[in-house]
């Protein structure tokens, strides 16, 4: 017998949710097969079977449990845990039965057929609200379908909300939003942020990108953001103050490697996959890896190691038509670069007004590790590299 436990996927994680079982109750599973998808604060991860055998699920889909909880057994739970205490065979002529109080229905337990439960889950119906018409008040298929129909018909039948209904709705935060909330509050409370902004002429970077893209053809992509990631990584190597973390009042840890967190927006919230050794990676490889990470983040199929260990982060809202914004540092990092949209702007060059594509970069920095000048020098280096993009290929 093997236990499948809720894994601990990071120091901050105290509980996790079973998002989906990929194997059914009672199904034969092979060691190494994916059993379930788990939602942690950061990402959804897949857990694999460590042994082969029959799966016995103890935590249903949608339920969150503390780290370390057994969520399933392979090859059965221990017999003692599963079976009630054996009873002695009852003596022949009607021995007085011990008075056992009738088992109370646990609160919130609804009698419903398996099909009704499946349909309710599909239609987002709370079974507590559905009146059961099956035997003993069991909620059956027709009850759920009737309820869904009624719900669909309701807005037409009742245009104004009833007076009893409040003007607001209290929505529980998803686990991911709760985690994001914890991180940003901690960051803004504990890290003294300051911000430095510069403008970058990305005309040559755009030309280089176009040339490389043409050489790549259809199969590969190089984006301006890849160039920005590369420039940021190289600049951090030169100005390592921002590639660091405050350990305590006396110590700052300078990282020898540059791992860039890439902020990716998903419907559930921010996911931050990590581009490792971005400063040492050739641009082509960097573009591929960045793409894998971003797509993985959106499809929720990142591995644990894809989302940990960033030393600095980059947030790009260029595609949302944002010219300038400031970002919140991801603790324990010491900086984050906010990237706006490249816009055609009139620029003075050698006494002439010319139109150039210009983009704004804003670095948020932890004042405990560097000052305005340090951040400015870092930003100037990023700018220099992007305006001379051949340097990114060297």
């Amino acid at each position, binding site marked *: 017998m093997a236990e499948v436990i809720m894994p601990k996927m990071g120091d901050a994680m105290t509980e996790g949710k079973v998002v989906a079982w990929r194997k059914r109750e*009672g199904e034969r599973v092979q060691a190494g097969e994916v059993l379930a998808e788990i939602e942690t604060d950061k990402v959804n991860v897949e857990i694999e079977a460590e042994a082969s055998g029959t799966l016995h699920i103890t935590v249903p889909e949608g339920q969150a449990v503390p780290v370390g909880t057994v969520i399933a057994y392979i090859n059965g739970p221990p017999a003692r845990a599963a079976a009630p205490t054996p009873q002695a065979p009852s003596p022949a002529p009607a021995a007085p039965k011990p008075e056992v109080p009738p088992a109370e229905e646990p609160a919130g337990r609804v009698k419903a*057929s*398996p*099909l*009704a*439960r*499946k349909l309710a889950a599909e239609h987002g119906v709370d079974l507590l609200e559905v009146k059961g018409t*099956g*035997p003993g008040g*069991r909620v*059956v*298929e027709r009850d759920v379908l009737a309820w869904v129909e009624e719900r669909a018909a309701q807005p037409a039948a009742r245009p104004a909300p009833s007076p009893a209904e409040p003007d607001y709705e209290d929505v529980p935060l998803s686990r991911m939003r709760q985690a994001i909330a914890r991180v940003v509050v901690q960051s803004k409370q504990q890290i003294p942020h300051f911000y430095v902004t510069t403008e970058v002429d990305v005309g040559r970077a755009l030309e280089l990108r176009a040339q490389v893209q043409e050489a790549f053809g259809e199969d590969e992509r190089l984006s301006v953001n890849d160039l920005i990631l590369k420039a940021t990584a190289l600049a951090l190597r030169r100005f390592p103050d921002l590639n660091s973390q405050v350990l305590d009042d006396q110590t700052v840890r300078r990282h020898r490697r540059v791992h860039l967190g890439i902020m990716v927006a998903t419907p559930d919230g921010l996911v931050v996959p990590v581009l490792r050794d971005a400063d040492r990676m050739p641009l082509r490889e960097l573009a591929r890896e960045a793409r894998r990470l971003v797509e993985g983040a959106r499809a929720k199929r990142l591995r644990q190691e894809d989302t940990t260990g960033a030393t600095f982060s980059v947030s790009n809202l260029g595609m949302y038509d944002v010219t300038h914004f400031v970002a919140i540092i991801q603790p324990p990092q010491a900086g984050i670069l906010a990237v706006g949209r490249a816009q055609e702007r009139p620029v003075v060059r050698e006494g002439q007004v010319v139109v150039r594509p210009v983009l704004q970069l804003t670095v948020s920095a932890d004042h405990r590790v560097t000052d305005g000048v340090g951040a400015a020098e870092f930003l100037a280096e990023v700018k220099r590299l992007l305006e001379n993009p051949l340097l990114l290929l060297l």
Partner: protein
Amino acid sequence: MPEMTYREALRSTLVEEMDRDPSVVLLGEDIGLYQGTFRVTEGLLERYGPKRVVDTPISELGFIGAGIGMAMLGLRPVVEVMTWNFSLPAADQILQNAAKVRYFSGGQVSVPLVIRGPNGAGVQLSAQHSQSFESFYGHFPGLRVVAPATPADAKGLLRTAIRSSDPVIFLEHAALYGVKGPVPDGDHAVPFGQAAVVRPGRHVTVVAYSRMLHLVLAVADRLAAEGIECEVVDLRSLRPLDVDTVAASVRRTHRAVVVQEQWPLFGAAAEIASGIYERCFDDLDAPVERVTGEDVPAPYARNLERLAFPDEDRIEQAVRRGLA
């Protein structure tokens, strides 16, 4: 397609297979001179002579054991038991030898034996002669267990049984010998382990086999008048058991009733219900209903016997419960 009775379907299959294959021989009590207690072997002694149609002494242990030995040495005996109740003295031969010889011999020796005869109740044969043996024999690996309900399946399954290299428990039903039905011409054979959806419907799946199938079909007719559509599945084989076809039907109807003539405990219906739960629990809109014989030895008196076994009314009630 010619119409013939269940009995004629069995007899004509014996004739066709004996004509085709000289290693097919018949053994049993009163199958030759008397032409069979249920007339299945009528005319066969005259046609094939006493070497191929062997009247045996009244000793099941002896003649079934002899059949197993003949099968091990290359013949294809079809042994008739007057009823399956009489197989009990030979249960040791069937379970300990026929079912295990291939296994014990590492695949070197097969037992291509068919044991056939009437199984089940409903014809006033009282407690010792009304029993059903599908779950008893179905329990043992190494055996095949089939129970045709129609003349066409009697023919198709018997042909497969005779050509099978495994020992086959061929369960006929005394109440069905006179039932008429269309039977395909030619080399009609029904593979083992394939249930048949004999009546499509969308409200409830009703599973049966052997005599119970006919009661279920009558109930389905009754309920159709009210707009209730039963999907009726005839199992045909008990081992191998085709639960997949049953589950596929339940996925469409979301409700299931399983009907068996035999006693409730450890019966075929429990096995099928369990298979449904394992395969399509989330598709069920109600618990699986079982209809079974009463948990008593079969009574002789007609009125009591009627009470002891499923009838159309009880099946109809169960279907209505299953639809609640």
